[in-house]
């Protein structure tokens, strides 16, 4: 066990515990964007940077993936940390001036008008990579990937063409921290603008509500190795059926 002092609160943790989990445990708020507990932290957005002191040495680290390996003092509110947070939000706000999540964070941390030219692409993507990770590590499909490098880096389908492997599950949409991926269900179809991919929606056998894409149902059948009632009914009707039983 190591001794931890986070913003004055003292506690003890097992080796390897991340700063972010200590913070959550002690109700210390650290802002995050690219962190999601279901995938390995990439440490890409740097929003969760905090100042630590280990063996008498101070440094800045990212809370999401820094494993505690010694007694540590953590400051989530130092002047250096606060300024860095504001600068990160300033460049992000210039990149995605329309993103509600970024606007909200910017306001919270006191960033008003960025000093830079605002991007006019109306793209809310901050290239955190969560969509790609979700598609690969949670869904197991890898229909999308990152491409290019530097300022041109972005998540796409290969050649920016309609994907043959995407199942239209929408996990990328749900995990995206900045609402950068649109998914529109309309007239029995589901369309992902960013992936240029369209699917046929399947209706619940009981109530008729569209609840999944046909490819998604087929994929689940394959993964489960059998047909299953859950693949025929929408979540609501499934619950109802369960209770009736």
């Amino acid at each position: 066990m190591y001794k931890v002092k986070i913003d004055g609160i003292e506690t003890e943790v097992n080796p390897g515990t991340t700063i972010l989990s200590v913070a959550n445990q002690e109700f210390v708020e650290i802002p995050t964007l690219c962190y999601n507990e279901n995938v390995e932290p990439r440490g890409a957005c740097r929003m969760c940077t905090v100042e630590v002191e280990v063996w008498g040495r101070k440094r800045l680290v990212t809370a999401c993936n820094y494993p505690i390996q010694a007694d540590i003092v953590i400051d989530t509110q130092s002047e250096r940390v606060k300024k860095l947070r504001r600068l990160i939000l300033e460049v992000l706000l210039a990149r995605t001036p329309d993103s509600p999540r970024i606007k909200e964070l910017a306001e919270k941390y006191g960033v008003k008008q960025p000093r830079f030219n605002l991007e006019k692409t109306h793209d809310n993507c901050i290239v955190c990579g969560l969509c790609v990770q979700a598609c690969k590590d949670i869904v197991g499909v890898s229909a999308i990937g990152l491409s290019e490098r530097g300022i041109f880096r972005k998540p796409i389908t290969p050649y920016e063409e309609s994907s043959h492997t995407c199942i239209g599950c929408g996990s990328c949409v749900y995990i995206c921290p900045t609402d950068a991926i649109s998914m529109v269900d309309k007239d029995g179809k589901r369309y992902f603008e960013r992936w240029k991919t369209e699917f046929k929606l399947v209706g619940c056998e009981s109530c008729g509500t569209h609840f999944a894409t046909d490819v998604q149902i087929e994929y689940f059948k394959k993964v489960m190795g059998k047909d299953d009632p859950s693949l025929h009914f929408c979540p609501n009707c499934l619950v109802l059926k369960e209770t009736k039983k």
Partner: protein
Amino acid sequence: MDLTKVDKILTNHKNDKAMLVAILQDVQDEFRYLPKEVLNHISKSLNIPLPEIYDVSTFYKAFSLKPRGKHICSICMGTACHVRGAPVILETAKTHLKIEPGQNTPNMQYTLNTVNCVGACAVGPVIQVDGSLYGNLTSMKTIQLLKKFEKD
């Protein structure tokens, strides 16, 4: 497209996923670019999702997804060349060939590229045409050099 050549490259690398960068380099040497069909084939053969191969292919500067011209002209933008006037050389080449870096001339004679240092700093500014280096360039010499390769 002759995919047996690709299979041979894959066999040379023992169909090892970790050799992806090396495999793509061999493909690029063979075809002068990375054709879509070949990337699809590698994806299936090595069981690597296509987006991951596409990521590697677009991340590294050594790779091109587009066919390239007969002559590849790379203008060195290293620091030593920069302080000796490489930006002017680039501007001259762009104006002369009427293309931007990364593009081919309409007759596919030239591909214009920039490279961040070829390590021939002593003779800068430098241009590399098809692997050979030409040094101590001026705007005039650049145009002469480009004209030389225009016809053959």
